[in-house]
């Protein structure tokens, strides 16, 4: 049951082979058993969770169930949920019980999904290793000496270790796709504006996008069906006709043109990763796809541009955490200014402070044009590169991450090295495009490798089709870390 797909779980629930309460209890027990060695889940409320499961069982009994009703999930701790501490991995919000639900929390509740708990994450989603969390680092279920990736590292580790069938994540520069890759999962970052950001604690507003993390593309498609859609409370939420992301899954890949950016395959990718990605591309060709070389000439500038734009927006987004209306307040201070400076210095961790300072600097008087404006122009060039490339292909493929999971502590002292681990994912966020990571093999050390698929705007269904067809032909996505099999 712990390895079952969402479709299988839905069938079992519908056939009354198992109740939602039993299923939920099974995963709650696994969290109790395995979470201490992973630190993937930061909070649970079994009473509340089981009450939701009972309500789901009642819906099923009444014949009012949808495809996800009664299936448990875990939320990244970035989504505000009424009655849950919504901490964003920060001491600043350690005691913040949200008084309202994020849009996607509401949507998944309406779908009848049962919340198992809250997933650990890099503080305010700033990190690529899940080591910046106030609640401690998350460990990778494939090797607990390694990082799970970040910032949705808790979500990734929890799904990989089968502590939950699926989880929500957010992706500002790769935070769904990179941990999905490092933990052997499937995760999709939708087109900017497809999933409402309302109630998702902002890191970089023009880049942030929520999405599902699960074992397979099919599971992600089912989740996305519930998560996507217009929300009038988010000005950047797009008004589009509702889409069934499962509709296209069964279509074969024949005729699909896969673009391979020469810049992604030039250098910087570990040989282990390269080998798996090449094999995956061969597999796609076997499935009827054709590959074509494309160019994204400015993609090398995506990391520099991102580390101007994202911190700039973050420095402003995080100003609301001032110790006045909610969140951490320093116990001692001399006056108002001191209250601000101490509360923020004590409430935020090192990486968050570093990005706030960077962002403050690039926006400050005399530097705006040289940094912020320049980065916005480069962002335009990067978006144009993709538009040009998509004239020659339907999807772009490449690695998700230049390496497999690295050791805990390996990069935490060197921010630049850490930042470069998102080199293949960041450009997608800058351009607002959908991107997905699917498992495509393992390194000799037994760590998963992810294949990244990028589409033009609103091509989620195509990416999911591509992932699903690949997963029909491969079994990487069904592999499970042995230590957490029992």
């Amino acid at each position, binding site marked *: 049951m712990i390895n079952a797909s969402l479709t299988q779980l839905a069938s079992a629930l519908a056939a009354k082979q198992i109740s939602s309460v039993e299923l939920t209890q099974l995963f709650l027990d696994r969290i109790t058993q395995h979470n201490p060695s992973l630190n993937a889940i930061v909070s649970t409320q079994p009473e509340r969770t089981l009450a939701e499961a009972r309500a789901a069982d009642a819906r099923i009994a009444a014949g009012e169930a949808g495809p996800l009703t009664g299936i448990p999930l875990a939320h990244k701790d970035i989504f505000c949920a009424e009655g849950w501490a919504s901490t964003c991995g920060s001491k600043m919000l350690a005691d913040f019980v949200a008084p309202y639900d994020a849009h996607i929390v509401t949507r998944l509740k309406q779908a009848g999904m049962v919340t198992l708990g809250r997933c650990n994450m890099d503080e305010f989603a700033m990190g690529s290793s899940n080591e910046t969390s106030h609640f401690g680092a998350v460990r990778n279920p494939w090797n607990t000496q390694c990082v799970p990736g970040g910032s949705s590292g808790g979500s990734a580790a929890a799904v990989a270790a089968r502590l939950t069938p699926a989880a929500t994540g957010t992706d500002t520069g790769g935070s769904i796709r990179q941990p999905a890759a490092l933990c052997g999962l499937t995760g999709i970052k939708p087109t900017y504006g497809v999933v409402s950001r309302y109630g998702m604690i902002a890191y*970089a507003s023009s880049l942030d996008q929520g999405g599902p993390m699960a074992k397979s593309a099919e599971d992600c498609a089912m989740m996305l069906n519930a998560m996507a859609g217009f929300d009038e409370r988010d000005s950047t939420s797009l008004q589009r006709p509702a889409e069934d992301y499962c509709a296209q899954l069964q279509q074969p890949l024949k005729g699909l043109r896969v673009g391979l950016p020469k810049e992604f395959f030039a250098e910087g990718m570990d040989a282990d990763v390269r080998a798996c990605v090449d094999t995956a591309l061969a597999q796609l060709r076997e499935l009827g796809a054709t590959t074509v070389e494309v160019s994204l000439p400015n993609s090398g500038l995506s990391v520099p541009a991102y580390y101007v734009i994202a911190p700039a927006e973050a420095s402003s987004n995080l100003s609301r955490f*001032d110790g006045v209306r909610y969140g951490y307040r320093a116990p001692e201070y001399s006056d108002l200014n001191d209250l601000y400076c101490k509360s923020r210095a004590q409430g935020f961790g090192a990486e968050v402070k570093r990005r706030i300072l960077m962002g403050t600097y690039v926006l400050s008087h005399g530097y705006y044009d040289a940094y912020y404006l320049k980065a916005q122009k480069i962002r335009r060039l990067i978006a144009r590169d993709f538009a040009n490339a998509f004239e020659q292909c339907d999807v772009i493929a490449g690695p998700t991450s230049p390496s497999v999971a690295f050791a805990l502590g390996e990069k935490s002292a060197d921010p630049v090295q850490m930042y470069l681990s998102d080199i293949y994912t960041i450009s997608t966020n800058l351009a607002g495009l959908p991107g997905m990571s699917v498992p495509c093999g393992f390194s000799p050390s037994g760590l998963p490798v992810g294949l990244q698929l990028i589409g033009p705007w609103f091509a989620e269904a195509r990416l999911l089709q591509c992932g699903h067809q690949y997963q029909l032909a491969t079994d990487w996505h069904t592999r499970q870390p042995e230590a957490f099999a029992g």
Partner: protein
Amino acid sequence: MSRADWEVVIGIETHAQLKTASKIFSGASTAFGAEPNTQACAVDVALPGVLPVLNKEAVAHAIRFGLAVGAEVAPRSVFARKNYFYPDLPKGYQISQFELPVVSGGGLTIVTSAGSKNVRLTRAHLEEDAGKSIHELDNSLALSHGRSGIDLNRAGTPLLEIVSEPDMRSAEEAVAYAKALHALVTWIDICDGNMQEGSFRCDANVSVRRKGESKLGTRREIKNLNSFRFLQQAIEYEIDWQIEQIEDGHAIVQATVLFDPDSGETRMMRSKEDAHDYRYFPDPDLLPLVIDADWIGKVKADMPELPAAMQQRFQSDWGLSEYDAVTLTASLDTARYFIDAGNLSKGEYKAAANWINGEIAALLNKRQININDPEVPSPEELAMVISRIKDGTISNAGAKKLFQALCDKRRLELESFAKQLTTASVQQIIDDMISASDLRQMNDSGALEAIIDEVLANNAKSVEEFRSGKDKAFNALVGQIMKASKGKANPQQVNDLLRAKLSS
């Protein structure tokens, strides 16, 4: 040197709260005076994860203003974040407009003792208001122990910040500008203009330079002036202070100052050295505001006739003086009242103007009410009073009594909540009141002649004096006749008949 050797340069920034039901970026109410923080929703409190959505009506108001001042309404404008920390600013930034404002250019005509002049506008942009810091409160232990309280009800109220060019040269001009702007924003109904409640607040940038100097002096900005009187006092004080400083050999340092109404002085809030670095950048949560020609056309079609056009019309069509035209267009309500009363009295515009600037102005002043108050006789009633003077039914003196009686009747009905339902027309009601108060003029010349004969018989001495050339005696006789008629005789008729009798 005297003040006459100096030239004063003033520019004004005005924050006008826009009249909307809900806030600029949230669905919370903008109503004034609610219990603290009861109208501060998740967006206004800036809870983690909340997002702004722009209020359409606030934009429509900005367009309306742009059209009213002949400015350009931007087809595309951008919201930016102005970053600074303050407890009444919950997000740590104010959403405003910076590089691309919604309204650019335009101007406003002001009238002072020196005549009229045009003040150019730089821009007008949309932004959100901040909350309020409260330092004193009855019964609050905390506030008396060195705390300030924060009320976010006002946070997110839509503002239009209207920036003038530095075109004003005296406190008088600055006040005339502020008054003209105040009249305009209330006229086009985008702002309630309530200065006590902070709906219309001015900042004045003041500098001085020696006459003939081409370079502008260093300016100081006086913040948050919420009455025309304070605006006047603060600028006058600031001008004297700056001239004195320079004449004493001190340079003016750019600064932001506050006006203390108690002392009548300005004092420094912060100097340029600790000026903020606001780190403006486009707000990623809000997309560009696009306004198409269609929308502008709709707003234009809905625009009332503006005061300047109306003043012209009053003078050219109805022969009013400039003074009357200006006073009658001080507010749209006054202008509408005037036009209604003039039309209903079949063209007695001059008489209507005199009544409004006379009896009605006195009533409004005495009772501290506005012209729409239910205590004020309606335009229809005023028109009927004017018509009854015109047709000779009542005298001017009688009309004043009748007007007073109308006011009394309205107050009585308001106080007793006993407005009687009646199907009687205004004409019937007024004619009944004329009869009941015995105000009808005596237009029967036979009865009047009898009274005159009696008065002449009883005042032989006065008759003798008149005939010997003392004109004053004539007036005494008129007075006696009016008295004998209990004030109901038509004075003109008395004059004519008396003169005829005395000369016969």
